Structures are given as structure tokens and as C-alpha cells.
């Protein structure tokens, strides 16, 4: 078990003295007590009625006279300070903290608080909210040992605790340690031999540089960043469909491999889309914000999940870049850190700046906003060229002069005409010869639809649940002109009612894709949607429809992909509309047209339709007028001229055709490239408000939140743009107290097993104090000065004398510092799930090394970071070794020890297969079992086995060989996976890995069991 850093520091303090007048350090000793025991009720959160009006997180509040007449803290006067009285009280009504907190103060803690008040009750700013300063390198008596200023800080503190440094680790151990720290893999035997054979004094430096230059470096660093960024390959909620995200993972590992400066790494992920002329890669980086889970569960409420998504983004950036628990402020002001609920929703405004839907499409399409991922620069250039061609064609079209007004207007024959004078058993007849009839959609029957007197003969009145479907009427795409016309009568002021649609079913807009004519708070909304709201064209009438009045409503779409191509006519005349959306950028799904109803949505309740007509072309304004019985000759000449242009001008028709071809070519090219989710700022994004108690349906309209940051942690520079790019600039300001410290601490943890701040996920007031604050700050400053050079910083750490020490403690060191917080010996790491499996594959010669690409199943034998991660069913062998599900940001993995881990190492098919292959591999090297065993041991554990180890393994070999495996039936055939014919073959369905059987050859079988045993041994699962 590890002793927290603060306890160690106390140990150091206790060594000095513990008299009543020992100076108290506010940050180290007082604040942790106040924060943990008092701030819950007397802290920054004003929402829940700060108890007794007392606030202890700042001096003004603590020393204020309270309503009760008491004053909590009177500097220098313990007798009069109510705080001292209350913490010392034995009266359960009076004592603080109150008994129901279940966290009483110890005598030592009471003493610290009293001494603090006696000594003047000085408040210091929380250490992590003060910009880091470089500290002078401590001078040491022994100057031969240190190799880097790091070592000065480490040895200085170790000496203070009465510890001395440990001798260097042997070279093999050091190489294994450095290889795991930098690449996540052990060295190969060839690398070991080459390293041991290199006599040059800089042999280690050269090897470290080799490791840093290896593509394995980026693969290894990516793992931690994927945990933090909750990277996975599925969406995570019910159904858990595949999520196309791996290009972002490749961006991350490439960024690490190319040693992208960390400030750039941060900026491109948070705000790559907001950089000037962003590249495709910079936009891919922003998927960082989109990796949160999304649901398509039927009946989900879009706003609830949109807010959850935004929260996830804020939370993830909070942990990843600031080491803070920002999400605590979602429902109330932060209980410990100076982050108000308003600050939180200002951050939410930054991350919620998308024109997006909270729900995933049922069909799992990439949720907009998205970009197109072109493979080559040529393809990207081609897209640009095609765009230019569209613009040119649009221009050419617009330059064609208006012809003379038409003198005759004839309405084209519709493809369908439903008079609705009668209903048949199955629906309604189409009066156009050869036209398809309308059918009752499957939930309805004749009795659900009522015949009522219409404008011509009978009409149909709808109940809101039942309607007609036109199964043949499909293919209303973005380039397909269309007209719908009918007499419409509203029977009530519908808040929402579907008149017509070809969108399949409705799940809170998340899945409605196709044309749609609905009543929206009494107005008409006419749209063509790919995925609402980002990829759609949509217009809304300015005026409401009257109720109980027949009107002929005609809507047209000209196939232009623009909102300007959507028109709404009332009684033959165009009505004014407002454009809601004009960003259709992919094709809608192909659904049948439905009238009067929609699954899971409000149909045309109490509304009536008569004389429904459909055209597969856009009627002109003149035709719509004539259709309604308006005399064509009375129409304005502009309308007639437009009609002439659209129907009679071959030049215009040709130019229109050219434009359509250009648009189709662009669309075809775009759709040939996969869509990839990315951030895209939109002015249409909903505004952010403080949500009362964090509830999505309780925005406090009196508290709108402009984009902003928790400025009490670090001031906002008003010259920065108030968006994600500004946020990135704020975070990477060299004076920002958190960003550099958080990253240094994380790099340190990667190399030394634990951060200088052990709670690497939380540098706020409830986090641990740094074990070596001066070192952390100095490194943070160095990091910024080095232009945020990640590789250079890691290089310093692994080249330090501290890192190079042997990890074996002296008895004294183990007693004084069992958790090795002071690093007076080298670090020990239990391998992660990834390292453990990668090591086995490498040792067995089975590892398929290929950088990047689609995620794969374990059977592909790639490095584990590429293993397909299904959020609701993560790989068991990884969960058992403390990898998370990647449902939410995981800043740190625990390090547990369980029986199931032993079962994985001994019986998981992958590990057994590795043991078997390794046995085959080493059996060919030498006829001698001892030599074979030694080689196998080295392949896995890097070092030579010690004599006792070799003896134990040789004995095991002899025992197993003497008791060869018994099979029934006696002639073994390798089992093969039996494919389940019913199982769907998707990447999300892992193939069943088959547990290999033992080789029949007794020697090989014995050697396999030896390899298996080595894989499960401590020397294999650790880097020491």
C-alpha cells in the first residue's frame, strides 16, 4: 500500500519538530483539512445556502462576523475564534464537522487548525492555481551521481528523509525498463545483445534515442491519451453500434511520433477547425471532442443527450488538460475549487457550439457535423476543383437573362392524385391511370380515418396516429424535384403534426431523413433532411395557418440542394418563409412517402386533406397558381417570365442541367470519401444557460452563459476569441498554472509509475500535494521553454540517474518509503493489459507490427492498442488487468492483483497460443532443454534466469515431459472455431478465440507449459 505524499511530507516535518509553535504551512497542512471537512458546507458553492453564511475558502469569509454574532476565525486568537471552539466541542449539536459527515477531525488535525489561527490565519493561494516558477537546482555534496537537475531535487529530498540513492540497475534491467517506459514493449533479444555489446559511454543515450524514434513510441503514448479521451470503436449505449473513430487514434499516435509540440497537440484537438484554413488532419484532431457516447435508443430525448455530450466534452478536457473535476459544477458551484456553475456553463457554451443533434441515427450514420476523409491530396484537390465548377455553373445560370413572359401556362399531369372521396379496403385509389394507390400504413385501418365533407366531394380527416403510405413512392433525393399539393384544413392549432414525409420513423429528430412537411406551432415547415439539424434544407412560413379553413397548400422542391429551392404556396400564391437550415451535404435515406402519420411522432391530428396530388417535378409559381384556378393571364409578368425560363428556355435548361451535373459530380466525389465526425462551429448552435440542478429541461433563462473559462483559476485575456480556440490559447498561455503541470505529471507517471502528484487526475484542492513541488514546477517551466517538447522531456526523465537506479530497496528504504514516493530507488511497474499481451506476442514472434489503421480483433495479433473496443462489452482479458471500458474519460488506471489475472495468463487462448509458439521457437535453437528454457525466459523477461529460477523451470520441464499430455481421442486435431451461422459478421462481433491444445510431442508440450509458467511469473508481468 502506498503512503500518500502528504503523509510523507508530514513525516519530514515531524522529524524536524512538533512543538506548539511549529510554523504551519497553509497549503500543505491547513487547506487539505478545510477542503475535505469544511468546504462541503462552507466552501465556494453558494447555491445550496452556505451554512450559517460562513465561507472558509477565503479569508474575507472566514473572518467575517456571522449573523450568529460569532466569528469563525480571528487571526491570532484561538480563544475567540468560533472555529476552534466548534472543532474542540464535545457537544454533538455543536461540534464541527458535524457527526453525520462521518469524517471527524483527528487531534493532530485540530492542533494544526488551532496553530494556524494562532500564527495569524494566513491564507495562501492553492499551489496548483499559482503559475509555476523555476526553482534553483539544489546543491549536493555528491556531485558524481546526478545526470540532470531532476536528480538534484530527488536526492536532496531523499537525503532529508534519511535515505540514500541506490546503485544503478544492471544494463539489461535498465534497457527493459526504458523500453517499456518509451515504447510499451520489451526489447528484443537482438536489441539486448547489441546494447550489451556496445561499450561506448553513450550506449544508453543512443538506445534511448532509438526508442524515441521508433514508431512504437507513438503507439505506446497513444494508449494513455486514448484512456483520457475515452476512445473506443462503438457508440456505447443500447445497441452499441460501431463508431468510426480510428483516424483520430492514428492522428494521436502520429502526433506523438512526430513529436508535435504539446501546445499544438492541445490546440488542434480542442479547436483545429477554428485555425485559419484548417487542414484535414487538424479537423480530424477535433474528433477528440466527439468521442463521447451517443444513444439511438427509441424514445430518447435529444436535448437530454445533447447536454450529456457537452458535459462529457467539458469533463474530458477538464481532466485531460487541467487536472480538474469541472463536471462537479454541472449541478452546483464546485464544492472545493473556484469553479462556479456559471463557469461550467460558459465552458459548455464553448463545447456546445455545434449545430448538432443529441441523438445518434438509428441506422448509425456518422452524426453531423462531419468532414469528408479524402485519402490523397489529389482527392482533396479534386474536391476543391469540383466546388469551383459548381460555383461557375451557378454563376453561368444566374447570368442568363430572363426571357419574355409566357403567354400560356399548362399544369403538368401529376403522377398521383388522390381525390379521397372514398376509402377502399386497403387505402385510397389513385385517379391517375396506372398510378399506385395509397395504402393504410401498417398501424391503421379504415375505421381510424374518417371521411368528412371536403372541398370537392369527400375528404379524409386524420386522428394523428393513422395515415396512408405510398410504398412505391421513393427516391426523393437531393437532386430530385418534387411537388405536393392538397387542400388542407387544420382542426386544431397543432403544436406539431406531420402532413407528409418520407423519413421513415421519428426519434426526436435524430433519425428523420427525407422530405418532410409538418405543422410547427401552427406554421408550416417544409424540409429535405439528411440528418437534422446539421445536414438539411428547411424553411418555415412566417404566418400561422388558420384552423377550420380549407386552403390549398402546395410545396415544391427544385432539386438544387438549397433552401432557396424550397417553396410554399397557399391558395396558389407563394407565401413568405424563413430559412431554418441551408446545409444539406449528403443524401437522405430512401424511404416511402407517408401522409398524415409518422411512427413515434404526432400525425395530422384533427386535420383533413382533400385532392392530394404529387409530381416528380417542381411546379412553377405560374403552374401552382393555375392549378388553383387563377387565370394565368392575370399573373405578374415576372411570374410568367420565370415560367417561360423554366419551361421554355433551352439555354436555361442547358445551364441548369450543367449545374446539376456539376453538383452531382461534387456530391459523388464527396460521398466516395467516408464521413468523419469533427467539430464545426455554428452560429445556429443553441445558446448555453445555467441549467438548474444540471437538469437539461431547466435552463435558467435569466442566466445565459457566453463562452468563457473558470477565470478565478487563471484570468481570461479579453483579446482572445471567446471560443474553443481562445480556450486553447488560454490553456497554453505560459503562465497558465495547470496545463504544463498536468502534462509533466502525466509524463512522470508514465516513466516513474506514479505522478509527482499521485492523484494525476486531480490537481485541485482535494487532490494530493506534490511529493516534489519544486521539481514539478521547474520541469513545467522547462517544458514550456522547450516549446512543449514531449520527447525531449521524456528523454531527460529516462536519462536521469534517478531512473537508472536499481529498483530493489534496502530494508531501511522499504520501511521508510514503501511506496517509493521519494524515488531513492528505481521504479517498478506492473505491466498494463496492453504491455502484457504485446510482450507475449513479441516473445512468441507472433506480433504483427503495422502502424495505424482500422481497429482489429485479437486474432489479428496486432498491438493491443488496435484491439477493437466495444464499450458495452470490453475485452475481458483487458478489464481483468484494469483497463477501462472507455465509456468515459479515464485519467488513471488502478493496479490490482486478482485470481482472474492468473487465469488470463495461464488459460487465455492468446497467452496459451503465445506460449506454444514461443516453445516451438526456442525448441529449434538448441537441443538442450536448459538452453531452450533460458532463451524462452529471456524472450519474455529480458534478463537471464537466475540459477534457482532455471532449476525450478528445468524441474518443471522434466516433470511435464515425464507426464505427457493425455488426449481423448488420442490423435489430436487442432480445434477450430465453429462459426455460429446466426452470428452477424461485423467488426463488433469478435471471433471466438479457440483455446489451443497442447502439442502432442512430450518435449514441446513440456516446453509450452514452461513458457506459460514464465508468462505468469512476476519477472514477466513487471518492469523492474
Amino acid at each position, binding site marked *: *500500500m*502506498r*503512503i*500518500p505524499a*502528504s*503523509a510523507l511530507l508530514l513525516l519530514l516535518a515531524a522529524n524536524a519538530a512538533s512543538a506548539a509553535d511549529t510554523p504551519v504551512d497553509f497549503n500543505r497542512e491547513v487547506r487539505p483539512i478545510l477542503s475535505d471537512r469544511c468546504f462541503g458546507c462552507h466552501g465556494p458553492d453558494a447555491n445550496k445556502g452556505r451554512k450559517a453564511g460562513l465561507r472558509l475558502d477565503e479569508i474575507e469569509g472566514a473572518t467575517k462576523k456571522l449573523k450568529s454574532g460569532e466569528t469563525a476565525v480571528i487571526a491570532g486568537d484561538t480563544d475567540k475564534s468560533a472555529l476552534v471552539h466548534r472543532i474542540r466541542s464535545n457537544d454533538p449539536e455543536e461540534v464541527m464537522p458535524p457527526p453525520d459527515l*462521518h*469524517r471527524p477531525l483527528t487531534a493532530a488535525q485540530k492542533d494544526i487548525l488551532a496553530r494556524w489561527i494562532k500564527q495569524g490565519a494566513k491564507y495562501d493561494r492553492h499551489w496548483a492555481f499559482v503559475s509555476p516558477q523555476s526553482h534553483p537546482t539544489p546543491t549536493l555534496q555528491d556531485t558524481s551521481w546526478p545526470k540532470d537537475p531532476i536528480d538534484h531535487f530527488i536526492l536532496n529530498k531523499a537525503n532529508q528523509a534519511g535515505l540514500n540513492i541506490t546503485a544503478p540497475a544492471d544494463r539489461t534491467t535498465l534497457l527493459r525498463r526504458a523500453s517499456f517506459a518509451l515504447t510499451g514493449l520489451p526489447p528484443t533479444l537482438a536489441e539486448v545483445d547489441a546494447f550489451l555489446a556496445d561499450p561506448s559511454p553513450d550506449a544508453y543515450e543512443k538506445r534511448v534515442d532509438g526508442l524515441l524514434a521508433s514508431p512504437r513510441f507513438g503507439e505506446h503514448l497513444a494508449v494513455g491519451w486514448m484512456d483520457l479521451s475515452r476512445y473506443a470503436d462503438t457508440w456505447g*449505449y*443500447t*445497441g452499441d453500434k460501431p463508431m468510426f473513430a480510428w483516424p483520430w487514434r492514428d492522428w494521436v499516435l502520429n502526433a506523438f511520433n512526430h513529436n508535435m509540440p504539446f501546445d499544438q497537440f492541445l490546440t488542434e484537438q480542442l479547436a483545429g477547425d477554428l485555425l485559419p484554413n484548417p487542414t484535414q488532419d487538424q479537423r480530424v484532431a477535433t474528433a477528440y471532442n466527439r468521442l463521447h457516447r451517443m444513444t439511438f*435508443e*427509441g*424514445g430518447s*430525448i435529444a436535448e437530454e443527450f445533447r447536454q450529456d455530450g457537452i458535459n462529457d466534452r467539458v469533463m474530458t478536457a477538464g481532466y485531460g488538460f487541467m487536472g480538474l473535476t469541472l463536471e*462537479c459544477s454541472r449541478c452546483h458551484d464546485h464544492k472545493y475549487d473556484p469553479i462556479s456553475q456559471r463557469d461550467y456553463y460558459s465552458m459548455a457554451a464553448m463545447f456546445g457550439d455545434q449545430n448538432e443533434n443529441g441523438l445518434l441515427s438509428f441506422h448509425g450514420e456518422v452524426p453531423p457535423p462531419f468532414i469528408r476523409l479524402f485519402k490523397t491530396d489529389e482527392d482533396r484537390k479534386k474536391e476543391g476543383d469540383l466546388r469551383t465548377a459548381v460555383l461557375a455553373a451557378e454563376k453561368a445560370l444566374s447570368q442568363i437573362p430572363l426571357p419574355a413572359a409566357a403567354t400560356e401556362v399548362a399544369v403538368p399531369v401529376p403522377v398521383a392524385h388522390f381525390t379521397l372521396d372514398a376509402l377502399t379496403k386497403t387505402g385510397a385509389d389513385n385517379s391517375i391511370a396506372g398510378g399506385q394507390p395509397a395504402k393504410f400504413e401498417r*398501424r391503421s385501418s379504415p375505421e381510424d380515418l374518417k371521411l368528412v365533407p371536403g372541398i370537392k366531394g369527400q375528404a379524409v380527416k386524420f386522428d394523428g396516429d393513422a395515415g396512408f403510405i405510398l410504398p412505391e413512392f421513393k427516391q426523393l433525393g437531393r437532386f430530385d424535384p418534387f411537388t405536393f399539393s392538397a387542400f388542407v384544413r387544420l382542426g386544431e392549432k397543432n403544436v406539431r403534426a406531420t402532413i407528409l414525409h418520407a423519413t421513415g420513423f*421519428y426519434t*426526436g429528430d435524430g433519425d428523420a431523413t427525407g422530405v418532410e412537411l409538418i405543422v410547427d406551432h401552427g406554421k408550416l415547415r417544409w424540409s429535405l433532411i439528411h440528418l437534422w439539424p446539421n445536414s438539411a434544407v428547411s424553411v418555415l412560413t412566417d404566418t400561422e395557418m388558420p384552423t377550420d379553413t380549407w386552403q390549398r397548400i402546395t410545396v415544391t422542391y427544385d432539386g438544387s440542394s438549397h433552401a432557396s429551392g424550397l417553396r410554399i404556396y397557399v391558395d396558389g400564391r407563394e407565401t413568405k418563409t424563413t430559412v431554418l437550415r441551408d446545409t444539406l451535404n449528403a443524401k437522405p435515406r430512401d424511404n416511402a412517402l407517408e401522409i398524415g402519420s409518422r411512427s*413515434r411522432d*404526432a*400525425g395530422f391530428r384533427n386535420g383533413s386533406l382533400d385532392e392530394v396530388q404529387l409530381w416528380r417535378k417542381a411546379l412553377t409559381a405560374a403552374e401552382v397558381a393555375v392549378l388553383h384556378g387563377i387565370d394565368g393571364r392575370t399573373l405578374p409578368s415576372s411570374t410568367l417570365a420565370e415560367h417561360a425560363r423554366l419551361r421554355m428556355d433551352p439555354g436555361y435548361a442547358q445551364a441548369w442541367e450543367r449545374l446539376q451535373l456539376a453538383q452531382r459530380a461534387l456530391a459523388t466525389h464527396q460521398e466516395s470519401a467516408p464521413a468523419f465526425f469533427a467539430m464545426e462551429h455554428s452560429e445556429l448552435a443553441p445558446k448555453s444557460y445555467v441549467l438548474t440542478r444540471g437538469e437539461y429541461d431547466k435552463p435558467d433563462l435569466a442566466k445565459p452563459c457566453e463562452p468563457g473559462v473558470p477565470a478565478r483559476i487563471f484570468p481570461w485575456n479579453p483579446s482572445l476569441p471567446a471560443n474553443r480556440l481562445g480556450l486553447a490559447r488560454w490553456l497554453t498561455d505560459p503562465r497558465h498554472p495547470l496545463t504544463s503541470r498536468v502534462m509533466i505529471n502525466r509524463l512522470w507517471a508514465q516513466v516513474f509509475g506514479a505522478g509527482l502528484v499521485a492523484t494525476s*487526475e*486531480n490537481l485541485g*484542492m*482535494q487532490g*494530493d500535494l506534490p511529493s516534489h513541488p519544486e521539481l514539478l514546477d521547474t520541469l513545467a517551466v522547462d517544458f514550456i521553454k522547450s516549446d512543449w517538447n514531449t520527447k525531449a522531456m521524456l528523454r531527460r526523465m529516462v536519462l536521469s540517474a534517478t531512473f537508472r537506479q536499481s*529498483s530493489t530497496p534496502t530494508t531501511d528504504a522499504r520501511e521508510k518509503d*514503501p511506496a517509493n514516493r521519494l524515488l531513492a530507488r528505481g521504479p*517498478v511497474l506492473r505491466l498494463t493489459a496492453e504491455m502484457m499481451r504485446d510482450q507475449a506476442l513479441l516473445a512468441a514472434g507472433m506480433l504483427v507490427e503495422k502502424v495505424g489503421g482500422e481497429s482489429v480483433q485479437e486474432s489479428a495479433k496486432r498491438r493491443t492498442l488496435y484491439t477493437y473496443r466495444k464499450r458495452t462489452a470490453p475485452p*475481458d482479458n483487458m*478489464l481483468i488487468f484494469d483497463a477501462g*471500458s472507455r465509456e*468515459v474519460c479515464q485519467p488513471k488506471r*488502478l493496479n*490490482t*492483483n486478482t*485470481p*482472474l*489475472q492468473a*487465469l488470463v495468463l495461464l*488459460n487465455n487462448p492468446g497467452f496459451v497460443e503465445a506460449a506454444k509458439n514461443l516453445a516451438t521457437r526456442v525448441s529449434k535453437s538448441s537441443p538442450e532443454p536448459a538452453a531452450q528454457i533460458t532463451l524462452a525466459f529471456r524472450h519474455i523477461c529480458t534478463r537471464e534466469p537466475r540459477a*534457482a*529460477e532455471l532449476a*525450478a*523451470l528445468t524441474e*518443471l520441464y522434466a516433470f*511435464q515431459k515425464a507426464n505427457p499430455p493425455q*488426449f481423448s481421442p488420442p490423435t*489430436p486435431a487442432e480445434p477450430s472455431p465453429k462459426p455460429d451461422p446466426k452470428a452477424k459478421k461485423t467488426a463488433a462481433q469478435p471471433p471466438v478465440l479457440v*483455446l*489451443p*491444445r497442447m*502439442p502432442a510431442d512430450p518435449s514441446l508440450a513440456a516446453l509450452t507449459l514452461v513458457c506459460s*509458467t514464465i508468462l*505468469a*511469473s*512476476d*519477472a514477466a508481468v*513487471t518492469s523492474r
Partner: protein
Amino acid sequence: MPPDKPSYDGLLRPTRRHFLGTSALGLGAMAMRGIIGDAHAAPLPKGTHFPAKAKRVIYLFQAGGPSHLETFDPKPLLREKNTQPLPDSVRQGQRLTGMSGYQATLPLAGSFADFKKYGQSGVEYSDLLSHTGELADDICVIRSMHTEAINHDPAITFFCSGNQVAGRPSMGAWASYGLGSMNENLPAFIVLVSQDATKDQPLYSRLWGAGFLPSEHQGVQFKAGKEPVLYLTNPEGVSPHARRGMLDALGKLNADQSAAELDPEVDARLAQAEMAYRMQTSVPEVADLSKESPATLAMYGESVKTPGSFAANCLQARRLIEKGVRFVQLFHQGWDQHGGLPNGIKRQCKQTDQASAALIKDLKQRGLLEDTLVIWGGEFGRTAYSQGKITKDNYGRDHHPRCFSVWMAGGGVKGGQAYGQTDEFGYNIIKDPVHVHDLHATMQHLLGVDHERQTFKFQGRYYRLTDVAGNVVKAVIA
């Protein structure tokens, strides 16, 4: 010992080696609980805060949202008002899901199933649950459960972990963490998923996950068949004898390593491997139902013979708790009747009724019921109105978090009562509401745990199963 570990107490903690040497719990218990190297995890079991009435829990989770109106909460008025619209005064503007929220009308649907009174206590049960009804005097039905989420995924996550955000420890993980294991050969928290259920809504491993607790508290899924626990089976050709040889060699390797590295983690690792070896024997033993008497098998019903069925899992659960498993959670899917409710719920009840009742009887016969808490229920209830059309013999019900029923028995529960009351539409609670947090608090209370004191510090905050809420429902406790 205080429930949390203020950092100043760190110095008072024994080193692991001291503990391994001196603890009365011994190496096995230590190993089972697992050992972690993290300053934020409390490494020792807290034990109980007060005497426990229940030592263990069997949770029969009915996933999908069973309708309370056809099972435990009779509403004659709904039959009277069948097909009439739900009055706005009852709905009170509460949110509906997008599946029925846009429906033109919300027609009330009376239960097709009849109810009658059972036992001395006269609590009413539906005819679909006659076996359960027979035990009315042992059972406490809570008719006033309510929850927060309205969709399956958030709601079932909320029920199983006290929060709809993913990543929180599940109920069983808390029990394992807080109370530790009672045996040296089996995990403390075991999960059984019915293979005979209609898989309408999926389950997720987070429902039995350890969340931020150390991973050894994760529920271990037991599956029907040759390998009840993942990776339990040795590769073909590796006999138990051969495996023993490997462990002996492993022991020697690690002993040498321990001597060389002076690291107590090495010994702990070996203890885990030994436990794994014992599990290889103990798990197949406990999973073997063939030794059960014909009378016992008959009690659970015909489907007990189908491996992995709900009935077989109920019997399996009894065998597991007999061996000292702390928390067994069954999952039975198929309760999500948006449409076709009558046939759907008949099937569900047929699959679960007899075996659930048999489990109680079986526990009782063996004297285990008094300290084993059995809970039956799903993540929410269903609407009083029909989703879609009502026909003569068909209707459906949408999700309804505002009220639903669960039952508890054994383990200190006061049987023979129906607690809480809903309005005559079965839509709102009118008396003694029980929130999910309250149920969790009560469950923990019966286990001897103060739900406010069992906490785990994570990311700077003290977390507990009941978040910041929850009251023990005293009236359901005997």
C-alpha cells in the same frame, strides 16, 4: 476505524507484509479481496457498521421494465376506464418518451390479468404470479418505487450503480468492496444472465462493473456450460496434475524473485495464482447442478433442466451463496412490452414465477432465508395508458419511471405486506414513495452497512452507492 482514509492516517497503516503476517483474516481472505497499490483505495474491508440482518444478497433483476399493472399493483379502475384517455390531471405534464409522447391519444389500458389475495396477509398478486403469491406472507412488495431515467440504458445503469453516468461501481461491487468475501475459492460478486430470456434490450458489463473501485470487485459472470468462468478451463492436454506442477514452479520462481526484489507484491501475486487454481476445482463443483435432489429440481420447474435458464440460475444462485458468495445478481431480459403486452408478460411470468418462488422456499428449507436478502424487480414500470392501439386482446405500455413495484424477501425483511401506494390509475405515487437510492440504502442497511458511511474517495470526492441521497425504509424491515 473511520470509513475513509485521511491522508494523515497513512503512517498508521501497517505495511502489507505486516498485515499478511498478522491478520486474523489470513492470506486467503487477503488474496481474495485482492491487493492494490493505490493510495486512494482503502485496502482493508470496512466490515459492517452495525449488526447485519442479511449476510448476502440474491438480486433477481428483471430487465426491460416489468409492468406493475399486470403483476403487483391491481388497478380495477383501469379496467373500468379501458380505452378512455388518461386525464391530464393524472399525467400532470410529466415527461413521456418519444415513443408514445406524440401519440394523438393516451388510452387507459386495464390489465388483462386478474388479481387475488394470497396468504394470511391477503396481499394481492396477479394470476400470472401464483407461485410467488403463495409466498405472500414471506414477501414485502414495494408498490411505490420510483426512479429518474425514462430510457432503458440510463435507467438500468442508474438502478445497478446509483447513477446514470457510466463508470460508477455496481451494487454488488460495493458489497464486495465493503464487506469482502466470505470464502477463499470463489469471487464475492457473481452475475448470472438468463439464456432463455427474450433479449429485447441489451445488457452491458458496466451493470456489474467495478467502476472506480479496484477491479477485483467487478462482478464475475458465470455462464452455463463447460466453462462457467472465463479462462477457467486448462488447455486440452493440461491435466490438473500438470497445472499443479506449473504452480509449484511458479511458486519457486516468485519466491526467488521475492527474495531478490524485496517486494511484497510478488507474494501477493502468487497468492492470486493459488486462488485461481482453487477456483478451477471449486467453480465446476458449485456449477454442477446434477447432484440436486429430484424434489428440489421439481420445485424450480421443468426449465431448471435447461442450462442457463432463469430457473437453473435461481438454483445456481442458491448453490453460490451456500458456498459463501456475497452478492449474486441474476438478469432476466424480455420485459419491454411496448406492444403485445398480454402475450409477452405471460411468457415472462411463466419463465420466472415458479423459480423465483422456489428459490425462496429452497432458502427457507435450508435455513438460509433469514440471512439472505432476495430482491426481485426491474428498472422502471410501465404506463397506465396503451402505447399504440388497444384491441380486444392486445395492447402495449410505454416506460414509466414514476411508479413501479419490486419485492424483497428474507434477510431481515418484514414479509406479508405491500408497502407504498399508487393512485387508482397506477400512475403517481400517493403514499410512501421509495426512490432507487432508498432501496439501495435499505439493502445496505440490511447488510449492516450505513450507506452514508461506506464511501470511496475518487477524483477528490467521496462517492457512495446512494450518491447524496437515500433513506432507509424502516417499515420494510422486520
